[in-house]
């Protein structure tokens, strides 16, 4: 394993008194695609949000390129290239589709944004049709496309994907997974949370299993896909 781009050590997070994350430790090496698997409420979203800094860490540390970013403001982390595609789409409903995309590149300045727009529309032609409509009027799946495209606008160095395939039609899911594989080939580092665990494990280099806020298993994608416990709990077999 090469030097880790992201190192999470002993991370804890809580909502009031509810502890959502205990002592989570994981690492993602540069260029790696790591999947995070876990049931409802396991703490996957919480982990990603803590890495992005929009939730405070109650314990432990987060290092990016060896630098401690545990207390860094979220915007600064985006500046470093840590970008998240959030769960539940979270599009800016009153703004147009194109404005949503542009905001994806907020931290990068406007020069790159034309190029990025073209790429986004190539990836999701449905969005091009709706570019001037308020994002709130899109269908659920279209909003999900927008959320993914918006995240990619930032040209992330570390991409945190929280259930990117949710609500997408089967054809598109296949495309999304292909696109993720492409991104990885192009050198991006990705931490992927997916309920579509079968596919996620298929393309992942490594994976972690999260249960009630704890990392309980870790291994290569292929190994975990064969693990009996994983199969029963997450793959529906």
């Amino acid at each position, binding site marked *: 394993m090469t030097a880790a781009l992201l190192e999470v050590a002993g991370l804890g997070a809580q909502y009031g008194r509810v502890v959502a994350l205990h002592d989570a430790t994981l690492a993602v090496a540069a260029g790696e695609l790591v999947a995070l698997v876990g049931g*409802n409420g396991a703490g996957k979203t919480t982990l990603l949000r803590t890495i992005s800094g929009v939730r405070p860490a109650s314990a432990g540390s987060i290092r990016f390129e060896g630098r401690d970013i545990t207390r860094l403001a979220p915007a600064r982390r985006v500046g470093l290239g840590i970008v998240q595609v959030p769960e539940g789409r979270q599009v800016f409903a009153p703004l147009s589709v194109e404005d949503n995309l542009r905001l994806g590149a907020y931290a990068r300045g406007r020069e790159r944004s034309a190029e990025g727009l073209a790429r986004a529309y190539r990836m999701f032609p449905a969005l091009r049709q709706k570019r001037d409509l308020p994002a709130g009027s899109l269908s659920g799946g279209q909003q999900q496309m927008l959320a993914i495209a918006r995240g990619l606008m930032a040209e992330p160095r570390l991409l945190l994907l929280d259930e990117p395939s949710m609500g997408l039609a089967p054809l598109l899911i296949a495309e999304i997974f292909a696109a993720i594989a492409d991104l990885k080939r192009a050198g991006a580092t990705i931490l992927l949370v997916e309920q579509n665990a079968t596919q996620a494990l298929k393309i992942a280099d490594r994976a972690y299993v999260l249960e009630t806020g704890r990392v309980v298993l870790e291994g290569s994608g292929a190994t975990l896909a064969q693990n009996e416990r994983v199969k029963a709990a997450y793959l529906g077999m």
Partner: protein
Amino acid sequence: MSLLEVQSLSKTFGGVAAVAEVSFELEAGHVHSVIGPNGAGKTTLFNLIAGAVRPSGGKVRLDGADITGLAPHVLAERGIGRSFQTPQIFAAMSVAENVMVGRHLRLDRRLLPSLLGMPAVDRANRAARERAQLLLDQVGLGQEADRPAGGLAYGAMKRLEIARALAGDPRLLLLDEPAAGLNPTETAEITALIQAIAAAGVTVVLVEHDMRLVMAVSDHIIVLDSGRKLADGTAAAIRADPAVIAAYLGQAQ
């Protein structure tokens, strides 16, 4: 006779037809699915049937009675329940209370007894609470009953949606992507739940992109594409339909 009859139902938003001239019939007691690409008009179709959006044209009949354009609460009274694609939970209330709201129509809603806190209201509350617990157990949220619903994980919210819709004892239950955000194991649980609901005589209409779930439970599938009905038939027929494969399923299926 069919339970629900949809006749050339249409809805346009600023010139764009989200649903165009869609017609179909739903047989009582069956599980029906509506599938189609993103933006095909599935959610809009639900919104039209359940009264969240007024149609631009066409008719909807329930048990032969015209229910086109009626308000959602009236339709709820007529026995239509639904869940939302984007969870619409009551964040400040407890999980159980969310479900109890779903039971609103079956409770004593008279003003005076409510104001005076008469025992009848207490009894109704207790019964509703018990019923809620039952439903929560059914969707796997039994442990969460007294938590604020706003703090639920996404997948849990989707299950809460189902429990709340069931609480109204609907005759026709519309479920919009109930398995989104659930992993295959959890989806299998929902699959069983849907089958149980149907077995109890409730007519279910499912919008879902998880084809394993759709194919497992559906007696009848309607395919929408760009607002129009592309196909309509049994699971087997749909699975084999080249148009559906090209537009939606892809070769993988």
